[in-house]
Structure formats: structure tokens, C-alpha cells
């Protein structure tokens, strides 16, 4: 009632206000947008993230000690997921490992994709020279095999968690850059970017507002696979003995350390392998089923 007395002008304007674009407002509807497989992925992902954040705290009282001398024990009531090559409880190891695998890989992936995309936007939005220089430099980096690079980095600077994140990120920046640049260059040639230029907009605005929103879709798809590769890189680094520091172990190292149990079908090697697979599949399911992604992709065509 108050509004009717306040201002006739406002009242007149009110009905003509465009209806708010509301699909995002309701979290439940947003979730439903994932579809069944996307939701499944989301649940698994959430599970691992929770495990990474709270798991060690939940388990700290029970399982940290090696205790038994029963190595490669099968699944039992005492050890839900069996024991590893030193008789340690696999459940505890997998849960603590989640912190490293999920954390390091996710961080490195975001860092790699973020840096790659930023550089690509810069290359596309600024002049030919920046583009050429950046492209050539990163091409050169791609030419060095990733494992060789990791080997050299770890040999030189030791293998701490920040070091691993940075190494993995550097290795995967050129790939992300390549994809983002090819997308961004196409967008940059479109008229709407030119319009922004004729308006006098700065490079930053063009990068972030005009180009970026139009390449996030494909970049997300790329991120999914990149994540898988970073998890694998960590695993293969641990194969070469360069991974996370003990007693912590990422899942890749757990697989590696317990590979001896494979012949007996031991849980200690299968469980971490399954953990890796479930995590990477979940990430890709979530990304592939992001609500509105399919629609957005069609829209850009």
C-alpha cells in the first residue's frame, strides 16, 4: 500500500520493468539442471572434497598407526580397506591421500587453466607482437617433454607440495594457452569486440568482459581432461620417486607403492586406483553436465 502513495512515476515504470532472468536464483532448480549423471558426478566430487577436508580429522584417533605387521591384508572389520605394504590402514591412507590428490591436482589444474587462459586472452586482445612472443615462448615450453621437465624441476628444487603444484601447472599452461588462444582469436575478430574497441575500451575490459565469457564453455571441457592428466602426472612422478613427501601419499603413490599386491588382487592397490578413476570421472561428468552449458554452446554457434 505504501508504494501507491510514494511516487506515481515509479509506479508507472514498474510494470514495464523486464522480468528478472531467474533460472539461477533457485539452487534446487540449478541442481536439477545437472541431470542424473551430472548429479552423480557432483555427489562423488562432493564426497571426495569432504573427505579431503574433514577426513583426516575424523580418522585421526583410530588409524594413523601402523600397528599390525600384517602387510597387504585383505578387507576386514579392523581394516575396512585392508592394509598396505607396511601394514598401515588403507582407509586412512586413501582419506589422507584425498587431500593431496584433490588439493594438488585441483590447484594445479586451476592454476594451469587460469594462467593459460589469461595469457591467451592477453595474446588475443593485445597486438601481434605480444601474441607472437607469447605463442612462441609457450610453444617452446610444450616442446620439452613433461616428464623431463618435472624431473629437472624436482631434481633442482626438491619435491614439496607448492613445488609440485607449480611444476604441474607450468607443464600444462601451454596446452591450455593453445586452446584458449585459438578460441579467443576467433572471438577477437568478431564485430562485437570491434565495437568495444571503437568505444575506447581498454585491453582488460575486452579480455574479461567481451572475450572471456564466450570461451569459458570449451575451456571448462578442456579443464576436465587436464585435471585427469595432472592427477596422472603426479602418479607418474611418484613412479619416478618424486611425488608427495611421506608419510603422506597421493593416490598415485599409493597405487605405486602397493603395486606388489596387484597379483593377489589386493585392495591396497585397487582402492586408490578406483579413487582416482572415480574422482576424474566425477569431475568430467560435472563439467559435461553443467547446467546451461549445452544451451550456451548452441547459443554461440
Amino acid at each position, binding site marked *: 500500500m505504501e508504494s501507491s502513495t510514494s511516487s506515481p512515476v515509479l509506479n508507472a515504470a514498474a510494470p514495464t520493468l523486464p522480468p528478472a532472468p531467474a533460472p539461477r536464483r533457485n539452487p534446487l532448480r540449478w541442481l536439477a539442471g545437472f541431470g542424473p549423471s551430472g548429479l552423480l558426478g557432483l555427489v562423488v566430487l562432493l564426497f571426495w572434497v569432504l573427505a579431503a577436508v574433514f577426513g583426516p580429522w575424523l580418522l585421526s584417533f583410530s588409524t594413523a598407526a*601402523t600397528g599390525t605387521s600384517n602387510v597387504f591384508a585383505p578387507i576386514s572389520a579392523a581394516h575396512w580397506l585392508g592394509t598396505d605394504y607396511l601394514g598401515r590402514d588403507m582407509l586412512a591412507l586413501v582419506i589422507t591421500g584425498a587431500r593431496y590428490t584433490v588439493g594438488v591436482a585441483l590447484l594445479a589444474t586451476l592454476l594451469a587453466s587460469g594462467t593459460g587462459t589469461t595469457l591467451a586472452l592477453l595474446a588475443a586482445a593485445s597486438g601481434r607482437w605480444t601474441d607472437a612472443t607469447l605463442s612462441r615462448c609457450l610453444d617452446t615450453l610444450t616442446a620439452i617433454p613433461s616428464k623431463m621437465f618435472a624431473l629437472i624441476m624436482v631434481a633442482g628444487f626438491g619435491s614439496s607440495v607448492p613445488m609440485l603444484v607449480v611444476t604441474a601447472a607450468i607443464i600444462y599452461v601451454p596446452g591450455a594457452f593453445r586452446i584458449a588462444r585459438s578460441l579467443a582469436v576467433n572471438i577477437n575478430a568478431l564485430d562485437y569486440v570491434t565495437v568495444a574497441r571503437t568505444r575506447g575500451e581498454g585491453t582488460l575490459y575486452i579480455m574479461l568482459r567481451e572475450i572471456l565469457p564466450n570461451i569459458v564453455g570449451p575451456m571448462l571441457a578442456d579443464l576436465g581432461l587436464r585435471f585427469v592428466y595432472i592427477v596422472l602426472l603426479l602418479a607418474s612422478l611418484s613412479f619416478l620417486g618424486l611425488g608427495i613427501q611421506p608419510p603422506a601419499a597421493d593416490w598415485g603413490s599409493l597405487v605405486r607403492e602397493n*603395486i606388489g*599386491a596387484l597379483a593377489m588382487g589386493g585392495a591396497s592397490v585397487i582402492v586408490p586406483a578406483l579413487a582416482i578413476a572415480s574422482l576424474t570421472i566425477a569431475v568430467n561428468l560435472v563439467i559435461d553436465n553443467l547446467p546451461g552449458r549445452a544451451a550456451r554452446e548452441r547459443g554461440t554457434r
Partner: protein
Amino acid sequence: SAHAQAPRRGGRIRVAGATAAATDTLDPAKQSNQTDYSRGNMIYNSLTSLDGSLTPQPALAESFTTKDAKTWVFTLRKGVVFHDGKALSPADVVFSVMRHKDPATASKAKVLADQIESVKATGPNEVTMVLSAPNADLPVILGTYHFHIVKEGTTDFNAGIGTGPYKLKEFKPGIRSLVVRNEAYWKPGKPYLDEIEFVGIGDESARVNALLSGGMDLVGSVNPRSVERVKGTPGFGIFVTQSGQYSDLVMRKDVGPGANPDFVLGMKHLFDREQMKKTIALDYAVVANDQPIDPTNRFHFAGLPQRPFDPEKAKFHLQKAGVTGKVPVVASPAALYSVEIALMLQQTAQRVGLELDIKRMPADGYWSNHWLNSQVGFGNVNPRPSADVLLTQFFQSGAAWNESRWKSEKFDQLLLASRAETDLAKRKQMYADMQTMIHQDAGIGIPLFLASIDGHSSKLKGLSPIPLGGLMGYNFAENVWLES
């Protein structure tokens, strides 16, 4: 079977060692690992050879004599020829020994060779060596792989010309080598096999799988965790060599927490040796007593009381030492089991309120960058041919590899004296004293003496342990034979 079969001649085997790299070498002075040693023993001989108790036996030298342990006379075996047909002469021996002293050779045995003052041909079949100080163990030293005898003037060793049981047919560093029977070998009846193909497989599970799939007849360095599998597969067996190899916790006495003797003692009491033996080595080890001479050695001092796992005592010493905060401990896969030992130590330490911060270093670069430089860290010592060599290299005050920088004048004097002592009983006592000193005072904790485990097909016969290391102290080639 209980009673020995007669060895059969003929057949071809494939053998896998644990390393393969482009640095594989046939130069005795440069040999540095299992595969190098094994290959060397196929194509070369030394003046002596070491038997199952590491006692030197005549080889290219028919006999060796000394009066004062300072001047040694070696009589060379007659009728020995190199693979290219040239007869063995004293000049070859002089060359082979003297080259280690030349810095340009960059020999790994230079330290050992430096005690030899001169090597001279003193007759058509006689070589005389004069030492700078008496050493009763010279024949033992000369029986090790670095002192293989090569042809005088050899500069390119890739041809692999020696006097050994097999002739080199192919040598591709890091890939494989192929040797065939030396028909003119001086030991009658030996070797038994026609041909050996020798490769290095770095990955343990690949090595074991290669064996179990029938692709290999003998593989070195099997992880205790694979033993059950090998034993459980019909047609395969394992071969255990208990030796003096150990991984040790090094606490430097000159810097860091190890400077406090109580810290060292506390740590030594923290080793749950039985548990380590069970979970880490799966019983393929013997419990050690913080001293380096292992039970297979004739100078092992069994009378030294075993130090127990005693958290209370450890706690007492550690509290007395007043160590606070996290103590960094450096370990590496380069030092066998050191990461696992460190992890168990970390847990027991936690129980007595000590925080250990395990730093695992990559294997490559470990020896040059971390070993000897870390305040608290792990080392690994391979079996040495004699107690003297071991103590001289690792415990003498001025020794380059004195891991804990432990200095004791009394120990050094005992060491020199025992080296010159030719009376075995007296010598034994001296060694016992030295072992006790190390057990008490050195900044070294030795939890276990490790065994080497090899896997083999049951058709392969003739294996017997030589505690220099696995694969019969790397000398399987001339001893094994194939059952038909």
C-alpha cells in the same frame, strides 16, 4: 635334493639385474652397481676370489705369501690366456693395479689402491706388492671386482677382453649384454653354460613378472613382498643371501641434535627392530646392534648385548637431551628401506613425544647432495669384503665417509693395529672392542642387516650364497648350471 647332482654342461640363461643405464661399463675401475659387478665377473678374474665366508682363495694368483703383511708376493697361474689369445703376464697385473692410483683413471677403488706403494714384476710369473703400512687383508681387497685383471695398456674396455669364464659377444650399455662360454677357461670343467644374456630391469615388479612369465631364469633384488608370489608359482624359487648390507640412521656428532650424546642414545632405543624386521623386511633380515659387522663376518662380536626397543629409556634420554620442535630426518629410496624405517621411527618417536619430520629425497642426487650433509638422515652401506675395509672407510676419524663425524683416537689406533695383526684370535678381540665402541658412541643407528633375495627358475642350479651381495656375490656366472 640333499645330495649334490653333477653339474650339467650347456644351455642358455637369461638373467636380470636391478639397474640398467647408459653408464653401464666394462671398465673395472668404474664399475658401480650390481649389473656392472656381475658382468665384470663374467669376463674378468682377479688375483684372488672370495668364498662363502669371504676368505680369499687363489684365482689368477696360484699363491700369495707375506711375512710382515707389508710386502706381498703373488705367484701367477701358468697357462692362463686372455680371450684374444694373449697369455697372462705380470705386466698385466702391474697395469691393472697401478691404474687405480692414477688420478686420471678416476677409479672408484683409488682409496683402497693408495695403500699399495708399488707393484713390480719380480719374475716371469711373480708380482710383488709393497704397502705403505701393513695390511693382512690385502688378498681380500684384491679379490674384489675393482681389481679385475685386464690386459696391459687397455684403454677401451668395451671389447671386454679378460681371462674370465665367458667371452663378450655383445655389449649395449643400458640394454643388454651377451656372453658365450670361454672354451679356453683355466678352471677345468667351468663354466657350465653356453651363453648368458644379461639385462638390467629397473622396476622390481617388472623383474619378478619377467621371471614368472618364463622370460628370465634368474633375477636379482627381489622385494620380500614378492617372495610369496615367487614361491607360490610352481617352477620358481628364491635364493637368499644374508649379508652385511645395512641402512643406517646417521646423526652427525658435529652439528645438529646428534651433537648431544643423549639424543643419539635416545634414538637408538627407539628402533623397534623386531617389528621392522617383520614389517619392513618381512623377516629377510637379521636384527643388528648399532654396529656394522654382521653375523656372516668372521669378526662379528656376538657377545655384545643387544640394545632393546625401550621407549621409556628413549624418552628419558631424549628429555635429557632437551630436543624441542620438529627434527628433520632425510631419507630416500636410494638408501634401501630408509623411508620405511623412517616412517616407523616417526611413529615410535611420536609416542615418546618427539616430532620427526621425514623428508624423502629423490634417489638421484641423494648421495652427493644429502648423504653426509644432512644433520639427521639415512645412509646405506653395501657389504664390504672385509671388516677392515668397512671400518676404515666408514668409521676411522678422518675417513671421507665417516657418516656421523665420530672421532675416537683409541678406535683409530685399534684399527691400525688390527690391520697389521696376523694372529686371528688377537685380531678378533680387537674387532670386538671396536664394535663395542661404535655401538656405544658413534652417531649411527643400525637396525637391521638386510638380506638380498634373488628369484630363479627351479631348473637353475649351483647357487650358494657369498655375502658380498645377491646373485652369489655377483659371481653366479661361472657357478650356475641348468638342469635338463
